[in-house]
């Protein structure tokens, strides 16, 4: 196809670089600098999509990110399909492939358009009124049908291979919008030496000036002026210019989120370059210079392809060298569209007429129209349009003539409309800035904001390039708007900008035939809005939700003000009494990927590894995540499954010696003269009398009396303790301790230092543990008498400085050796070597769980769940009976915590010893009762015990300790298991092995 709608000598395109692209499989061409929309228009293609509800043919309406209709799918190859991309924003690149949306089988012929025939059955809110009978049909027929019809573009199906980046940035001044106002501000601030960031979402700076090549600023043509300014700014080191960068949200204290699109416009994307970048900019001051967005007019048939905003028409002509039609009707209630007509006439395009609904317009404009030989129909309204896939004619009529005598039909292939301008207040409103109603202009203007933020240019309701420049220069220089110091001389300014604001355009057409659209994408008509009001939706927020006006992907940029005017009319109140709906981020739709940034795939979240982890890895360990850590779960040997490996590992610990990486345990060094007193207040146990060189099991509660954490605590010296915590609990325990210390007991002389990662911890467990360790330890007698269970010493092990604990989480003779992390792996390998004669066996967390379950040791978080008291867990022995207070003590005497029927920690043995119960399974007394059953509690830990040759389980059971030897039941899906309640200590209850 040829680009028969190009206008010679116009546009800012690189005509030397032609580009090919496809749309719905058909090949077209365009030039570098085109957007997809401009390139399509160059071929006369207006029809690009179908509307949401009625599947009406829709064309390009705008030339910017506010586009509601021209949404297409862009396919850049595997995993790089993206729905709902605005053709008006997507820059053309070589080979671009786009498809239209929401049509089947094709854009030209769309079955869904049948909905349009029955539109009178689908007014706003219709689905609340129907699909209710018969009830069963909802699930099976109605809802599937509604869901089937949903959505616009097709969803991406393959994982996105692109990467995304993010940055923090700080500056003195952030300027959003690089039109005349923003550029002038940047220039002043930049010259002052401030750190300035100026962003614009478009591919070039200049804003509306890009569509206005004839005006001159200080003698230079506008495009030249832009080039000069941008060059000067680029030369300033303190100024950062970001194009294709949308300010998406204005957050607390001048934090503005920006999304910079880095590669979507490129024909060849270099490898590894992020597709988009999120900037979190914290600015001392923000200047919003976002401009204004033109309003469509609401008239019968205003949604036909070919009906567009007048300013978009100007943009296509001037920036892209494209005419939107060969015979154009202008319809407006505002001056600015007249300029569009003049521009087109100057370019030699036929203007069928300027239809202005106002009774009178500025004689200067009329004179100029006469000069250009343009027919003007002032005081006229559009009542109808024709043309299914492209507008073919408009019917106009004098607004003062109900008799239809003045009716006339104008043939055309495009309509440029203007309902005036809406200052862009989105970001301003994100700050919770307030708006005021400007009666003259019939629009909202910015008022107060809690942020350090100025708003200038068209966004501030000012019109005219000179005015915009002046505001920019003043505010950019840090002065008040009234301080006119810098002034610009502007010729051919577009300062004619008065107009009136309309609801629906007046029409004499019978109401039932009128289809005047307010929200194009969501197919909301003015009648829908009136119906919503009639139905009792009197708040604009209700109207929005009932009609979906303003909820489409343009977020009401085109529809909100028109919707408001119509709703106000229907309600019989003034627009400010109705008010606007809330503006929310993002300013334009923003990819999920850029928010995720680097945090995807393996970088999604930290995975912590111990220094011994690489060794385990080399041995083929299987890992499991435990909080942020990964831990070796078991070490399978050839042919072993988990059960076999775990049985072997457990066997080794019970009969020989096992070695275990316990480095992930939390460790806190508690130091200071008040260290013991501090621990006494924190933990349930007594600490004052613990002798240096001794350890004690410590139990930590929340202030609510429930178990939060536990671990072994050793006293190193009078004023120094080595506290251990659970792996997952470490950060919280430290934070809780700091909290009490700093805010409740600031008088205590004690300090906390996390040493979790200072120490690698290697556990040697099993009857032969001493044999392995002894030869490597210097200067300590490790015999049971000299170094009994719960001893600790500082010594050297294999030449490394160590803290040696005699502790056991397995029930066997055991030691835990702490050495500085950097020596951890070396020591581990040394032990493996030294243990070889004793068949030392590395074991993982799974065996550890089995071993500790055999001994009835709890794991906080598995056997407890935040509702378990020390008594429930059978840990009353760990409470210092003489202590007056400790964290959580008072709660333990609350009525419910001492009531009967609390769930208590017990052991369970299945009657069939081969059955390993499911953790989480519920226990009942009477398995034959009907559902809902009375449940006594649940299984917290359950394993196959090789040592006992049977399964074992731990459970929390109501009144569990009073039920010893009772039979209880565990009803599962297809069978019920019988169990006997027993003590939770299954193995070596006397603790002989531990103390040997």
């Amino acid at each position, binding site marked *: 196809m040829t680009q028969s709608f190009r206008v010679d000598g116009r546009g800012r395109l690189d005509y030397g670089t032609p580009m090919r692209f496809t749309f719905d499989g058909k090949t077209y061409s365009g030039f570098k600098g085109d957007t997809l929309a401009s390139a399509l228009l160059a071929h006369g293609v207006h029809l690009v999509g179908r509307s949401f509800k009625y599947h009406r043919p829709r064309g390009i309406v705008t030339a910017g990110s506010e586009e509601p209709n021209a949404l297409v799918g862009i396919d850049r190859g595997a995993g790089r399909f993206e729905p709902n991309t605005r053709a008006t924003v997507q820059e053309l690149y070589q080979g671009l492939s786009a498809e239209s949306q929401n049509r089947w089988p094709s854009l030209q012929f769309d079955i869904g358009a049948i909905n349009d025939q029955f539109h009178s059955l689908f007014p706003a809110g219709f689905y609340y009124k129907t699909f209710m009978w018969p009830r069963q049909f909802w699930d099976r027929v109605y809802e599937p049908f509604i869901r089937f019809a949903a959505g616009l573009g097709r969803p991406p199906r393959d994982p996105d291979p692109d990467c995304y980046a993010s940055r923090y940035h700080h500056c003195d001044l952030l300027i959003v919008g690089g039109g005349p106002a923003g550029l002038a501000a940047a220039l002043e601030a930049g010259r002052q030496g401030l750190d300035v960031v100026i962003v614009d979402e478009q591919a070039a700076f200049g804003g509306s000036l890009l569509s206005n090549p004839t005006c001159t600023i200080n003698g230079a043509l506008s495009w030249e002026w832009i080039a000069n300014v941008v060059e000067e700014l680029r030369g300033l080191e303190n100024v950062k210019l970001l194009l294709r960068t949308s300010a998406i949200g204005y957050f607390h204290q001048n934090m503005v989120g920006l999304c910079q699109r880095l590669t979507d416009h490129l024909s060849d994307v270099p490898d590894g*370059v*992020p597709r988009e970048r999120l900037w979190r900019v914290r600015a001392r001051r923000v200047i919003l210079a976002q401009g204004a967005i033109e309003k469509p007019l609401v008239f019968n048939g205003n949604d036909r392809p070919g009906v567009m905003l007048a300013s978009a028409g100007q943009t296509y002509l001037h920036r892209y060298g494209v005419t939107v039609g060969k015979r154009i009707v202008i319809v407006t209630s505002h001056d600015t569209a007249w300029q569009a007509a003049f521009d087109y006439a100057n370019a030699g395009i036929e203007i069928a007429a300027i239809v202005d609904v106002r009774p009178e317009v500025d004689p200067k404009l009329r004179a100029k129209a006469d000069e250009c030989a343009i027919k003007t129909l002032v005081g006229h309204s559009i009542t109808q349009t024709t043309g299914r896939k492209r507008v073919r004619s408009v019917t106009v009529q004098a607004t003062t003539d109900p008799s239809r005598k003045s009716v006339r039909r104008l043939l055309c292939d495009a309509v440029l409309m203007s309902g005036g301008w809406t200052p862009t207040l989105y970001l301003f409103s994100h700050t919770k800035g307030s708006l005021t109603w400007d009666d003259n202009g019939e629009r909202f203007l910015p008022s107060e904001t809690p942020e350090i933020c100025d708003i200038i240019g068209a966004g501030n309701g000012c019109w005219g390039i000179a005015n915009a420049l002046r505001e920019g220069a003043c505010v950019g220089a840090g002065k008040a708007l009234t301080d006119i110091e810098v002034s610009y001389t502007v010729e051919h300014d577009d300062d004619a900008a008065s107009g009136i604001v309309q609801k629906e355009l007046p029409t004499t057409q019978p109401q039932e035939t009128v289809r005047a659209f307010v929200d194009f994408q969501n197919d909301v008509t003015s009648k829908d809005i009136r119906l919503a009001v009639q139905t009792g939706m009197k708040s604009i927020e209700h109207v929005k939700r009932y009609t979906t006006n303003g909820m489409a992907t343009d977020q009401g940029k085109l529809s909100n003000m028109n919707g408001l005017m119509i709703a106000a009319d229907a309600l019989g109140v003034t627009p400010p009494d109705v008010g606007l709906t809330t503006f929310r981020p993002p300013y334009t739709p923003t990819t999920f990927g850029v928010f995720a940034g680097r945090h995807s795939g393996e970088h999604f979240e930290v995975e912590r590894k111990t220094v011994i982890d690489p060794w385990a890895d080399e041995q083929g360990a299987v890992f499991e995540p435990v909080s942020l850590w990964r831990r070796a779960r078991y070490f399978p040997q050839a042919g072993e499954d988990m059960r076999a490996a775990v049985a072997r590992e457990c066997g080794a610990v019970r009969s020989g010696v096992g070695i275990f990486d316990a480095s992930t345990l939390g460790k806190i060094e508690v130091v200071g003269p008040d260290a013991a007193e501090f621990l006494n207040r924190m933990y349930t146990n007594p600490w004052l009398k613990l002798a240096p060189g001794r350890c004690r099991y410590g139990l930590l509660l929340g202030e609510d009396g429930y178990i939060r954490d536990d671990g072994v605590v050793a006293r190193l010296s009078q004023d120094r303790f080595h506290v251990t915590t659970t792996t997952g609990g470490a950060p919280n325990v430290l934070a809780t301790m700091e909290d009490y210390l700093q805010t409740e007991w600031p008088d205590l002389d004690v300090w906390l230092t996390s040493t*979790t990662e200072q120490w690698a911890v290697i556990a040697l467990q099993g009857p032969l543990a001493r044999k392995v360790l002894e030869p490597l330890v210097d200067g300590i007698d490790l015999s049971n008498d000299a170094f009994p269970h719960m001893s600790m010493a500082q010594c050297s092990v294999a030449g490394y400085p160590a803290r040696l604990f005699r502790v056991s989480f397995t029930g066997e003779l055991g030691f835990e050796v702490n050495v500085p992390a950097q020596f951890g792996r070396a020591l581990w390998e040394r032990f493996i070597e030294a243990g070889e004669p004793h068949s030392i066996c590395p074991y993982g967390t799974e065996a550890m769980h089995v071993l500790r379950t055999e001994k009835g040791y709890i794991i906080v978080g598995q056997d407890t769940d935040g509702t378990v008291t020390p008594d429930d867990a059978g840990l009353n022995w760990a409470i210092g009976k003489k202590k007056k207070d400790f964290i959580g003590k008072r709660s333990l005497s609350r009525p419910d915590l001492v009531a009967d029927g609390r769930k208590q920690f017990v052991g369970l043995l299945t009657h069939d010893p081969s059955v390993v119960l499911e953790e989480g399974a519920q226990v009942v007394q009477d398995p034959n009762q009907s559902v809902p059953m009375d449940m006594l509690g649940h299984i917290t830990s359950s394993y196959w015990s090789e040592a006992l040759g049977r399964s074992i389980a731990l459970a929390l059971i109501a009144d569990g300790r009073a039920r010893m030897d009772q039979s209880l039941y565990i009803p599962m899906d297809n069978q019920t298991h019988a169990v006997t309640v027993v003590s939770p200590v299954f193995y070596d209850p006397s603790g002989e092995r531990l103390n040997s």
Partner: protein
Amino acid sequence: MMNKGAVPLERVEDKNVRLSANEARQGKGFKLHTDSNGTHKTLANITGDRIKISMRAPGGRLSLRVREQNRLQTSEALRVPLPLQIGKRKTDGKRSVLCLGPDEWVIRTPCEDVQALLQKSELLRDATPHSLVDVSSRDVEIDISGRDVEAVLSAGCPIDFRQFSVGEGKRTIFDSVQIILDRHTDTDFSIEVWRSYSAYIWEGLALAIDDVNAESFLAE
């Protein structure tokens, strides 16, 4: 660059078997798959003309805590200078001390000094309450320098580098991980981070470098 650090578990494709929760919990249905290209990322230094990252050799590091009223005494007894203001660093020969909080300093010193300092602390203990803890092995240090250094750090570090002068250091975060960041010259920084987080930080920096490099790629 994105080779998986963890040992990937590969799901066994047994068509007809539905895994029960218990089976899944017991690791059934997963078989071990060892990654041939090195399961452990070796942190190879990154050297470019605009940015360099390298791992610093282990050094001695101690965390000192003492109340204001005992600061001078402690400083004298340990013979370490203790800067007064949070964020300031004082250097004395091979030793440098950074103030992290109102009663908190980190002392960086050659490894061989650590024991001596701990002994001095022991002697001081009764007279002057304080806490000195060896954390040499807890953290690792990453040096990062070059023209692009601020841009790279800004990928994950939310502070305003214009307010962060040479000779200062502070605890902050990079990519939600706590670090201590020191500024040595305009373009020389170091990051101190708990050992098990270092690979993540490293990777984050590497990704940030890709992003910063993209700037020169994309410059028109």
